[in-house]
């Protein structure tokens, strides 16, 4: 049983396109996150949702829009993709106290 799953695993697209990445967790956690990992492996939080409510919204271009239809799902939609959006995007989830996070396998986005 996969705890945190993401689809697709790989995504290759052209500049200007719109794409979505989906995330699902079956751990019963209340909080879900999106992270971006660049080519140097630096990991940066983008968004966090708690019970479908946005609680963390870092400085991210408004081309990125998260959506949480229920607390088990957190999707990421990206409009007008740019070359700089190429990265690996990780979804994660956690339960309040002790807050350790469980990560999905990542989605490698390549914008050409």
């Amino acid at each position, binding site marked *: 049983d996969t705890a945190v799953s993401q689809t697709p695993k790989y995504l290759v697209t052209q500049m200007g396109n719109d794409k979505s990445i989906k995330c699902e967790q079956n751990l019963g956690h209340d*909080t879900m996150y999106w992270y971006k990992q660049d080519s140097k*492996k630096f*990991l940066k*939080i983008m968004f966090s949702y708690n019970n479908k409510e946005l609680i963390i919204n870092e400085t991210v271009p408004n081309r990125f829009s998260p959506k949480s239809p229920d607390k088990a799902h957190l999707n990421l939609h990206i409009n007008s993709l740019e070359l700089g959006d190429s990265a690996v995007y990780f979804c994660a989830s956690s339960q309040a106290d*002790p*807050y350790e*996070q469980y990560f999905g396998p990542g989605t490698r986005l390549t914008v050409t």
Partner: protein
Amino acid sequence: AQSVTQPDIHITVSEGASLELRCNYSYGATPYLFWYVQSPGQGLQLLLKYFSGDTLVQGIKGFEAEFKRSQSSFNLRKPSVHWSDAAEYFCAPERETNAGKSTFGDGTTLTVKP
């Protein structure tokens, strides 16, 4: 401002040798402390965590970490490294008042020589 530093970008050790990965943080109060490992092509996996109590914590895969309040450090150690330990390691402090928002260090890449 809150920050975390992993001073070693890249470490190479021989298989069977001991390992220590450093992590220093700058927070107003002692945060929750986590170490995660990322194997090539994988997501991050929790190795161990410290909240309070015994300052030496044990984790999975034979790893341990020691919290030293006076040095604001939470260094990760393993007595004998295996080739499968080659990976990226991230230290991640988290404030209780800002729970759920870990700040990840820049990571340390571990290479294991046969």
